[in-house]
């Protein structure tokens, strides 16, 4: 997932107004949009950016959740109040009140709100370590909190990584939903949600290859991310 992070720095598909609205062909497998941008390139760049953004949010959320889990039960009531509603229920009115959220504030808000939901399962994952004699031994031997953290960080990171897929998919859907209903980051940078927002009204009436392709990618991501469950 880390290889997706540089996707946030990818440039936009180049404009070519004289080649707008071309149907699918060899040169442009999904055709071009009204501004002459290659639809396949837009889809690839938008998908890469959405995945990169979700990865960044998920990593931030896990780091915050780890800090909260190690910090103990401080402010548990405040955390449970904020986590009692899904992140989107807070994000949507905030985005509407501020006229849309940019990438950075949206990423920080998603990471913060997801961290509140990730902290309880992460704390449960860490309990065996925090209650183990090896962890207490460090305390008894006089090691500082920083020293113990340094030696145990790989172990904590491995436990936190178990929650990475759910954090990732939560961030991906939050951004896609906000963008698809027109409250995400501005139109200057494509994302999967923005492509859906743009193509959604055309899906039922036009052939709209870009819309269908974006929908296929989103569906593949949804089913690809479903937790693998064992049959009873």
């Amino acid at each position, binding site marked *: 997932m880390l290889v997706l992070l540089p996707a946030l720095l990818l440039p936009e598909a180049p404009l070519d107004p004289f080649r707008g609205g071309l149907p699918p062909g060899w040169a442009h497998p999904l055709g071009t949009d009204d501004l002459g941008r290659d639809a396949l390139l837009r889809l690839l760049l938008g998908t890469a950016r959405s995945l990169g953004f979700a990865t960044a949010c998920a990593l931030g959320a896990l780091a915050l959740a780890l800090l909260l889990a190690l910090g103990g*039960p401080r*402010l*548990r*009531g*405040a*955390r*449970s*109040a*904020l986590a*009692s*509603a*899904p992140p*989107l*229920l807070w994000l*949507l*009115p905030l985005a*509407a*009140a*501020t*006229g849309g959220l940019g990438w950075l504030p949206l990423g920080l808000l998603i990471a913060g709100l997801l961290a509140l939901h990730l902290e309880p399962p992460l704390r449960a994952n860490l309990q065996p370590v925090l209650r183990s004699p090896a962890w207490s031994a460090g305390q008894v031997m006089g090691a500082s909190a920083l020293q113990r953290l340094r030696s145990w960080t790989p172990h904590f990171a491995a436990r936190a990584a178990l929650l990475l897929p759910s954090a990732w998919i939560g961030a991906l*859907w939050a951004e*896609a*939903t906000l963008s*698809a*209903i027109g409250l995400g980051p501005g139109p200057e940078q494509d994302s999967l949600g923005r492509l*859906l927002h743009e193509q*959604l009204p055309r*899906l*039922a009436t036009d052939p709209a290859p870009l819309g269908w392709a974006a*929908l296929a990618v*989103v*569906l593949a991501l*949804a*089913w690809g*991310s*479903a*937790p*693998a*469950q*064992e*049959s*009873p």
Partner: protein
Amino acid sequence: MNGAGGWAVWALLLLLAWTLPGKVWRPASIPDFPVQGLFAFLVPLLALLLLAPLFALRGGRGLARSRLLSALEAPPPLLWAIALLVLWPAAWGPPGLPGGGLAFLACALPMEVRWLAQALPVEQPFPAAWGAAAQARSRRGALAALLPRWLAARLPVWIMSTLVLERVLGVQGLGSDWMARVGARDQFGLALWVAALAALWALARDRAGR
């Protein structure tokens, strides 16, 4: 002390609702409460309240590990709304609130069946060894005890789902009322919403025995 922290957060959110940032770019009148939308929400909600415990009762704890449920649960409300828009026959007119109710049920039912199935107590070795009747009685008892907390804990999730469905389908219902009041900067209406969410949080907490 923990409860006090939670109430402090709700007080802050109420304050935020009263002093909502930003300005309306055009004068907007405060929307009426969508009574029609509430009734349209109640029908799929009642179906959900009936069907989810029924499936959990039949399937038991094993349903929480079902691959089919997992696959049905994966698409978020946004995808169900898009699927409805694409599949809805044009001859029937716009999907409207009935279509939204259908999409809500398709989106929420797998999630809730899993929630309830996961919360059911372990049945091995007992009451499974005592026979099917004892097992069913144990499930019924557990579901009856879970019901109030399930409602309080999951209502915000259902409101969020209806909000997304209504925005994509272009209808005014219960979920989008929350956003309509943000749009019109209706401080009183928003404060009522925040108070309702706080009441649900308190109910879910108390039922959890904390």
